[in-house]
Structure formats: C-alpha cells, structure tokens
C-alpha cells in the first residue's frame, strides 16, 4: 500500500511530470515500421503527447506535434489527410531499429542504444509487433517482472502436444527435456526468486526446484525504464516495451528475436493479426466481451477461462486493476520482490532527476551503454547443486550456434 501521492508520482508520465521526466531520458517505440507503409503523416500518441511521424526535407523521419481536438479518443488514428501539424510545437528525433521506429522525447542529447540481442541480431531474425492495453504503463510492466504469476494466470490444466506452437509463449518443451513448460509451471507454483540490480535494470531468476534433484531456471530481465526481456521458447526471446500512450493506455511493442533460424515473420504476423484490429492494434478480446471468458473452459482447461493466448490473460489481469491501479489498496508479498526492487530504482531515478543528476540513471553514461549486451534470457533445467553454472552454459551453447554475433 502506497499513498495516492506516491502512486501518482510513479505512474503519471505527461510532460513535466516526475516519472515522465525519467522516461523521457530514453528512446521509446513510437510506431511499427509496417505502419510507415501508409501515407505520411502517420499519427502517434506517445507519453501523453499528440504527435505525427513525418519525412523531413532530407528524407529522414521526424516526430512532430499534431493539432488535436478536445475529446479525441486516446488511441485516435486519423487519416493522413486529416492531420494538421502544429508548426511551433516540439519535434523529436526518430531512429528505426528492427521493425520499430523509436523516438526520443527528452531534453538534451539522446543516449546511445545498448547492444542488446534484439538490436544486434540480423533483420531476418527479428520480428516486431504491438498491441493495445487499456491501462497505465506501470501495471503493464509490473506483470512482466513477476515470475510467480505464470504458475497461476497461465496455468493450463492439460498439456497439449507441442507440435503447432511455433511463435507462442510457454508452449514449448523445457530446455533439453521432454517436460512441457506448462507442466513445470503448474507443478511448481512457488519459485525461489532472486533479483540482482544490473547496469540495465534487473536480472530476475526464478528457480523451481523439481523432485528429481533438478531445478528449472528461468532468467528474465527488467530493462529500465519500461521494458522486459524474457525467453519465449527455446529458439526465441521477447524484448517488450510497455510504452505509455497517456496515463491510462499503453502499447506493448515486442521484438521477437530468434537465435538460430530466421523468424517466420508471415506466420508470426498472421497469428497476431487474427487477434488484433488495425490501425489501432486493439485486441479483439477485451473488457467489453469479457475477454472471451468461458466458465466451462475455466473449470476444465485454463485457469482464466480466456483461451490459450497468454497475452489475453495478462491483458485481463492488468486491465482489471482499473485504468491506473489503485496502489493505496494493494498488498505486495515477498514474491513480488522484483516489483519492489524496480520501484526502488524508479524512485531513486525520480530523486536523481530532481537533483539534476541524470547520469545516476541506468544506461545514461555514454561510454558504457554500447558495452551492455545480452541480456541473458533463458529457460534451462539443471542439477540443483549447480543451477547457476549449468544455466549459463546452456545459454552460451545456444549463442555459439547462432549465425549472428550473439557472444557475451
């Protein structure tokens, strides 16, 4: 339980707000490159600002301020012909990386991009997509740094065969075993969670000690301020930003990064287009249709009764908290330790910006940023007495077999 005042401080991100000032020190996904195929200008709603992507005289992308009408919906997506640019308004630099146009809305120099796997992999090995969640960005992020919830929210009461699960989270077999991931999550619901502060944010290790002297090791990451990097399957990782549209809505932007084989982008895109409507990328399952909830399915097949797509489960959990989670009514447990550590970093960053000390924030020290690689993001099964070394070794083997430079 935190005070309303503190909740406002850490959630609200408009211009001149405290958390907004911290977020504006970083690049944020503004649009998918596939959105740029339509006519310019292209509407962008980001960090409480109404913007549009334009091509400047040199042919470079630039984000400019768009004249907005009172009462526009938060994810308003007008046709190019209806967009009027506020010529005296702020404009921002844009950089395209792997299928996403990133924008920098802050003061001063934009920082370098860190050398994460999702940025250094070949274009053939990275696929980008996005989706709308109708809630504040922080609760969207916090579910991604909560290793305990997967054993409940994403519990499947039956394990299906793993044949048709390409491109889906938690539907693979674990590491080099024949155990479905769904079974591990279901049978070991109380992970030991270790959290370490790193130069990019947090490294989160969830250990599920199994009966046979083996431990399931799942390593995920928080990338400051609003991204996560997690394993999706043996072949792919997910790097996902929870980007504020305004205080009450956000987009998830994901770079799916494949180690060995090129990504089947057509299949990945078709899977996701079936669940979303364009041009807003709003999910077809939502609050209005109870997320497709089926009580019989909840009794027999899934914990939520909302189908097999775990993204829908997450969306229900975070949207059900209300547009901005009322943290004066929350009761975190010790299993929420990564959330607690994250908020500590965020509050320290807010204090540092208040004191004019931007360099105290993660990934703001120019020389070091490009030396940040990885991060290690992996599921492995290892002997309990040597889980750390074995998990690291499994990641190194995967990286060594990879056609792009994935060395760490």
């Amino acid at each position, binding site marked *: 339980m935190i005070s309303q005042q503190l909740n406002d401080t850490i959630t609200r991100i408009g211009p001149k707000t405290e958390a907004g000032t911290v977020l504006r020190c970083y690049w944020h996904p503004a649009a998918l490159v596939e959105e740029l195929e339509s006519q310019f200008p292209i509407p962008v709603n980001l960090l409480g600002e109404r913007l549009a992507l334009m091509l400047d005289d040199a042919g470079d992308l630039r984000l400019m301020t768009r004249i907005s009408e009172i009462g526009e919906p938060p994810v308003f997506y007008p046709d190019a012909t209806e967009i009027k640019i506020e010529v005296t308004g702020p404009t921002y630099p844009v950089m395209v990386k792997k299928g996403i146009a990133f924008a920098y809305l802050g003061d001063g120099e934009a920082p370098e991009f860190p050398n994460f796997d999702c940025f250094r992999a070949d274009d053939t090995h990275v696929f980008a997509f996005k989706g709308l969640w109708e809630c504040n960005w922080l609760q969207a992020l916090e579910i991604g740094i909560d290793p305990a919830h997967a054993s409940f929210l994403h519990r499947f009461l039956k394990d299906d065969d793993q044949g048709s699960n390409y491109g889906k989270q938690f539907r693979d077999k674990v590491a080099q075993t024949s155990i479905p991931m769904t079974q591990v999550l279901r049978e070991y619901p109380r992970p030991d969670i270790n959290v370490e502060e790193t130069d990019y944010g947090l490294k989160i290790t969830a250990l599920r000690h199994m009966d046979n002297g083996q431990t399931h090791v799942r390593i995920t990451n928080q990338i400051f301020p609003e991204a996560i990097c997690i394993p999706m399957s043996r072949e792919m990782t997910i790097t996902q930003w929870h980007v504020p549209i305004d205080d009450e809505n956000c987009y998830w932007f994901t770079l799916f990064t494949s180690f060995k084989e090129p990504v089947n982008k057509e299949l990945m895109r078709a899977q996701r287009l079936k669940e979303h409507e364009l041009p807003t990328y709003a999910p077809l399952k939502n609050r209005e249709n109870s997320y497709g909830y089926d009580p019989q399915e909840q009794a027999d097949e899934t914990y939520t009764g909302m189908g097999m797509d775990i993204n829908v489960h997450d969306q229900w959990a975070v949207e059900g908290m209300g547009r901005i989670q009322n943290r004066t009514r929350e*009761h975190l447990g*010790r299993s929420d330790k990564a959330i607690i550590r994250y908020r500590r970093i965020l509050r320290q960053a807010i204090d540092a910006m208040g004191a004019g000390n931007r360099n105290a924030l993660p990934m703001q020290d120019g020389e070091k940023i490009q030396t940040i690689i990885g991060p290690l993001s992996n599921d492995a099964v290892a002997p309990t007495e040597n889980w750390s070394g074995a998990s690291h070794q499994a990641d190194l083997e995967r990286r060594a077999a990879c056609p792009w430079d994935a060395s760490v």
Partner: protein
Amino acid sequence: MTQQTSIPAEEFIDAPTGWVRILDREALEIVRPLIPIVLNGQRLVLFRDEEGELGLIGRNCPHRGADLCYGRLENNGLRCPFHGWHFDRTGQCVEQPAEPEGSPMYKAIKVPMTPVEERDGGIWAFLKDGDTT
C-alpha cells in the same frame, strides 16, 4: 441449473441501511454461482461456496487488484486466477500459494464482507451506515 457462457451482468443496487433484498434466489442457480454486485457504488462479488453458503466480498483482489469476478470457485471459496490467493466466504484470505514457504502474511489479509443471507426466496444483504456513503 442454467448453463452459462460468460459472467452474469453486474447488478446495480442502491438502498438505505439495514437488510435489503438484492436478488431472487434463482439468480444464483447457475453452473458457476457468482454474480458481480454494485451496492451503493461499492463493487462486490456474490458467490455460493461448496457448503452452500453465500459470500459477498470486495471485488478487487487485495494483492494487486485483479477482478475477482473472474475468480475460480474451488476448495469451498474463491481463488484469484492471478496468483492463486484463496478467500473463504467471510473474505478471509486462507492461502497465498506463491508466497515463500511458511509465510504468515495470509493471516493478516481479509477482504471486507457484507453480511448476506437467504430467506423468503430472496438473497438479502445488510448495509451498515458506512456502506451507504
């Protein structure tokens, strides 16, 4: 017993203090006996447990605020699908299965309960003074 395909619509009730008839008994005769109730603006969830008794408790899980209308009716109570926190019909938390072994935290967590009973073919709730503001 009526089959159902989703969550029953929210019932909105505004009433003075004292015992108030909120529903006909038949309204809960559904496969999954749970109905969202908004009582004088307070968002609650009404459910029947395996002993056949009624619970009328706050709708947002006290952990991280998930919507308990989508909870699982099991083990004689209501379980939040987010992290498995389990509540009995009085609103007392009886289990936090993801918390570290031996954690006593669940004992200190109790969702507010509105007294509820069945008579004359109806379901009645008792509203205190504070419930009407």
